[in-house]
């Protein structure tokens, strides 16, 4: 009798505890299932005031980019990664005492938004999120983002350069942006007596033949100097690889139709063949499927890499390391003109809330950040202001001003960052490059694979 009841007591106790705790987790989950109606997403329940209109508590999430430290004018308050978010929150709260802002720093090192995702899964949905645009679109696809159409005047919208912001289903507020282009260590070219092979400062464009000649001239493996680098280990910075394709006429999507990719084209195949030729001729660091953009940054800083396809963010590094930086466009085929540049945009999104006061306060915080912090943040990121009214404020170096002029001349191109499946797109593009670099597929085969794989994900 004793052994019988003991035999059943323990499993019965366990089952009871499990059922009790699973039931608690289940009811927490049920609140999320009601959140897919527009405006119905919960703003989290961890101590936020209900909408009585008097006091508002916001959760301000942002990515802790490693280069956003020592922000000009706020050096003391931005010594560590992620501090800039707290500094913005503190300044905003000082001007708006009825608003309490809690900060959540998304870990940038993982290259994903897993920190934020875990918080959302626990019920802590943010009111604002600042990160690169590519991180934000998936939440837009989940229906969590508030459209901003009713919160901006026409004057505010037209202040944005090149129609980068509209008043039609606008889901993000651009802060600043920078194009992906070719960054050159001009000192290495001068040391190799090859500086004359670079594009002229007035033009900054060159053909693929001119590009290859320049790479060959600076190639010096015995001295540890590599012309350029290709990378396909992770999805990080794959837009740098995409940049080689735009001048050939490749386009990721057709207009605003993000339901199927148009990258599989003869033009793109030519572009991929060109990229492969850089590797085949030994003009790129060997083993690209084991390399990342971190390797590119490290080698560029060590002055063992002459050409880096990246954002124009090397001015500070160049002056510290003692070399001259020079920004130019990606090479274009001789029978085509200079290609457009892809813009890396940092943006803010306001998230839906059942409490209209929270949305109002979130928009106010977003505008505060755009007005007071966009310019100093753009400086540390090596990026450019996206508003006409901020151009004069920006402390652009000569090279960055040249980049602004270049973008104005050649225009910009999109890669589908507004697609909720953009993380899948980048990862699939990385795998396509990997197939190409290890020789498992030809450019045509790789593009067919890319199209089939991505379109299947876009349908989902």
């Amino acid at each position, binding site marked *: 009798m004793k052994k019988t009841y003991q035999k059943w007591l323990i499993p019965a106790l366990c089952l009871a505890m499990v059922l009790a705790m699973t039931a608690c987790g289940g009811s927490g989950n049920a609140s999320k299932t009601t959140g897919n109606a527009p405006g119905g*997403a919960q703003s989290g329940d961890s101590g936020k005031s209900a909408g009585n209109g008097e006091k508002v508590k916001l959760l301000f999430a942002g990515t802790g980019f490693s280069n956003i430290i020592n922000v000009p004018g706020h050096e003391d308050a931005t010594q560590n990664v992620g501090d800039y978010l707290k500094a913005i929150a503190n300044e905003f709260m000082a001007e708006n005492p009825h608003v309490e802002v809690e900060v959540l720093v998304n870990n940038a090192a*993982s290259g994903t938004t897993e920190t934020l995702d875990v918080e959302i899964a626990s019920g802590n949905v943010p009111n604002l999120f600042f990160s690169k645009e590519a991180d934000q679109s998936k939440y837009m696809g989940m229906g969590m983002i508030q459209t901003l159409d009713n919160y901006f005047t026409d004057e505010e919208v037209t202040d944005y350069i090149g129609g980068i912001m509209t008043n039609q289903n606008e889901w993000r507020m651009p802060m600043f942006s920078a194009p992906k282009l070719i960054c050159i260590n001009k000192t290495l070219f001068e040391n190799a007596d090859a500086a004359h092979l670079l594009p002229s400062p007035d033009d900054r464009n060159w053909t693929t033949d001119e590009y290859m000649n320049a790479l060959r001239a600076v190639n010096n493996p015995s001295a540890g100097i590599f012309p350029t680098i290709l990378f396909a280990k992770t999805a990080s910075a794959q837009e740098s690889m995409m940049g080689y394709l735009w001048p050939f006429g490749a386009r990721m999507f057709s207009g605003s139709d993000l339901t199927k990719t148009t990258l599989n084209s003869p033009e793109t195949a030519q572009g991929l063949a060109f990229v492969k030729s850089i590797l085949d001729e030994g003009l790129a660091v060997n083993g690209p499927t084991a390399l990342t953009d971190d390797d590119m940054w490290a080698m560029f800083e060590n002055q063992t890499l002459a050409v880096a396809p990246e954002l124009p963010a090397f001015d500070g590094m160049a002056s510290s390391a003692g070399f001259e930086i020079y920004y130019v466009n990606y090479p274009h085929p001789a029978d085509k003109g200079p290609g457009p540049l892809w813009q890396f945009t940092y943006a803010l999104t306001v998230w839906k809330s059942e409490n209209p006061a929270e949305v109002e306060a979130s928009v106010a915080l977003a505008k505060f950040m755009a007005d007071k912090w966009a310019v100093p943040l753009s400086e540390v990121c090596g990026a450019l202001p996206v508003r006409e009214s901020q151009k004069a404020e920006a402390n652009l170096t000569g090279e960055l001003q040249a980049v602004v002029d270049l973008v104005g001349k050649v225009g910009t191109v999109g890669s589908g960052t507004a697609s909720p499946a953009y993380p899948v797109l980048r990862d699939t593009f990385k795998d396509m490059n990997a*197939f190409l670099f290890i020789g498992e597929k030809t450019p045509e085969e790789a593009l067919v694979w890319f199209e089939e794989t991505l379109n299947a994900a876009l349908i989902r």
Partner: protein
Amino acid sequence: MQALKKVVTNLYKQRWAWFFIIPGYIIFLLFNIIPTLRTVYTSFFDYNLATMEFAGLGNYIKLFGSQAFRASVRNTLLFAVIITPLSTVVSLLIATTIFPLGNKAQSVYRGAFFLPNVIGGVIISAIWLWIFHPVYGVLNYVLSLFGVQPLLWLADSKTVIFSVVLVIMSWTCGSLIILYVAGLGNIDPCLMEAAKIDGASPAQVFFRITLPLLKPVTTFIVTTQLINCFQLWEVIYLLTDGGPVNASTTLAFDIYKKAFLLGDYGLAAAEGVMLIVLCALVSLTTLRMVSGKEEK
């Protein structure tokens, strides 16, 4: 009433046992049982943080149609089949080599071999990332001294599995060596002496006496190494990111990608369930094989 009184009395008598068991039990429930049950539950839903719609077996059907999943299963089993016997044999050989040494020498070697275990997988992987570097790596430098062309250790699908196995071996063999040395210490030296007196060669002593007596340790090592192989994540994440093109992806890593890259938590949960099932099947089969041999 009498029965209830008996229950209460016995519980009171065993109160200290319950006092010590319950905290651990609660932790086990909170961090193992409940998350596992939630994972099974989530695997039947289409869940992307915002919405949760019942999908039935949809996630499982999608999973078996996924090339990345098939590659993950293949690679995970490959790692298990290669790493488990290799690490067991290598650890045993090292343990039998250092065991006869004096206490001090043995301590030095044990400490040296165990150090990678203490450092952890992340730092080990970061170190090996530099060792394998296609340009600056010391391995390629050593090869160049012998006139051999540099190898793309992590960049080539032909060498990536071998490279990962090397890293895992360097990381995990230390603890296995410690276990084997302890196991060797538990063997009565009289048995060896008696065998030697009877004319047994060192090989016969090893295979007929030492190895059979180390069976419990070997069973434990094989089972835990198998389970570790199924949980490979940080080494893959840092060294290869599952590439090139899924050539080194594992189930644990693919689960991470499906959850945090694709945002498909239901699909990731389904893959998690498959990982549990596969791990249980392999472990039970191995245990049965070993215990079956013992009974014979």
